[in-house]
């Protein structure tokens, strides 16, 4: 029986898109957390970290409440795009995003905080705007750690199961990602498909983690 590769491609696509969104939003958030002082800062950090410790079902439930067809956000999406968000591959992206954001924000915050303050101060005394300071000094100096964090986020997004199942469902050919497809294959006794997908997913994850480790400045030869 030929193996259907669609779940794998879907997983990769979901992971790429969610990592891109996570980088755009997560880096901004991490930079704010690392550089600004404000009230409830650590509360915000804790909220971002929460998905690391909550069971996927709880997160899935929250997401259904947040972006379900009855919710304001869900309705807004439907008016703009003409179709619901939940139980589409885009919902799988949101699920993967929630799964991968905590670690990305955590490690990027640490990366930004590890940039020696005197570099940023020097840039300011030289008249650099905060924007230029970020793009030309802070980000380049932290880029290895951030790439490593992004690789981890990608791997996490690739492997999400619980949240995806709850908000995107298990629709073969439409929202069935690799992780969900493996569950499906095992349930229906389709051992060959399960083995193949497990093997490929493991290899990809292993590759990504190796790259992430090489990127991490602690391990880089210099």
């Amino acid at each position, binding site marked *: 029986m030929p193996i259907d590769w669609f779940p794998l491609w879907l997983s990769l696509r979901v992971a790429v898109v969610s990592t891109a969104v996570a980088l755009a939003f997560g880096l901004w958030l991490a930079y704010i957390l690392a550089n600004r002082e404000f009230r409830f800062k650590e509360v915000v950090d804790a909220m971002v970290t929460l998905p690391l410790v909550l069971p996927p079902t709880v997160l899935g439930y929250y997401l259904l409440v947040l972006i379900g067809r009855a919710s304001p956000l869900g309705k807004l999406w439907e008016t703009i795009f003409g179709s619901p968000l939940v139980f589409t591959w885009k919902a799988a992206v949101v699920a993967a995003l929630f799964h991968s954001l905590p670690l990305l924000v955590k490690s990027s915050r640490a990366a930004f905080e590890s940039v020696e303050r005197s570099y940023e*101060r020097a840039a*300011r*005394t*030289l*008249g*650099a705007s905060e924007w230029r300071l970020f793009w030309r000094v802070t980000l380049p*100096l932290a880029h290895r750690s951030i790439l490593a964090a992004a690789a981890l986020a990608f791997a996490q997004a690739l492997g999400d199961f619980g949240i995806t199942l709850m908000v995107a469902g298990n629709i073969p050919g439409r929202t069935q990602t690799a992780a969900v497809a493996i569950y499906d294959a095992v349930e229906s006794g389709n051992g060959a498909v399960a083995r193949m997908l497990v093997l490929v997913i493991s290899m990809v994850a292993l590759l990504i983690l190796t790259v992430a480790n090489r990127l991490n400045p602690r391990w880089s030869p210099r």
Partner: protein
Amino acid sequence: MLQARLRKTFPQGADSAGFSLALEFQAGTGVTVLFGPSGSGKTLVLDAIAGFVRPDEGRILLDNDLLFDGATGVHLPPQARNCGYVFQNYALFPHMTLRQNLMFAAERRPRLERHRRVNEMIETFRLTEAAGRRPHEVSGGQRQRCSIARALIVAPKLLLLDEPAQGLDAPLKAEFYEVLRQVRADFKTPVILVTHDLDECFELGEEMLILREGQIVQSGTPRKILDQPANVEVARLLGAFNLIPCEIRALDPGRNTSKVQMGEFELDGPYFPGRFKGDRVTLCVRPELLVVTARLGSAGPNQIPAVLSRTVEKAQWMRLEFEGGIAADMGREEFERQRENKEWLIEFVPSTLRVL
């Protein structure tokens, strides 16, 4: 011309002692040295001027620009202050070449002028060979010159230097002093230099402010301060004095003489204005101004017999420490001639004596 009045209090924390800074000073052209022990608030003053730290109250005026004013809430960001800052670790961006570091600083200038200006700086600060390399690939001296060039490229109205020579070996220090003298001559930018190295104050400082626990305890030219420290605290900070308790026995302003009782000995000194007979004071005399000889006969005028307790070798001279805590410095050759002395005499030259 910088005029600063600053007040900043850090409340006592769980793992930190409270600290309060309260001072007022002016810095004109030339080099003004902020001298003080670690923890006296020197760097905090620089950070407040540069705009990294917001004082609780006060006012900072640079030429005609108001940088900070507690009363009206003016607090310009560092970008708008026109203050160059050379950091202790130089803070050259490690991911850029020296030339790129300079270009980064020059970016606010018009495009055409930018390259000319950077090239000028590279030449002035002898960085031609190193310009294409990154900070970790060049020598300490090149890093140092580049960080000063980078700070000067934006034509700051004031240059702030935070212990830039700390931890450098002697040749590099000498080179740095040379560069700074050149800066003073060519750029005419007023400089505020933070240091706890006394030699640096004398090498570079036209004006010196002594800081202790967040306050200025004395200001003046380095020469003047060393000649007449304001009080025992300052003398201790400068670290180069014999400080001996004694009592004033007689004062004669007409003949510019005095007599002070030091233990069992009576010494002649100059007239001490503002002191009275019977005052208990601290006699203050630099070790290199004491004259030490072998005791052959009886003690002459202003000489006291002393027992040598140990000698300390310095690079250029010997320090002789006598019982009773008096130290005297002597050239090496002179010491070689005298080392067999059994008994010693210390002569206090009257004109060198100060009381605090």
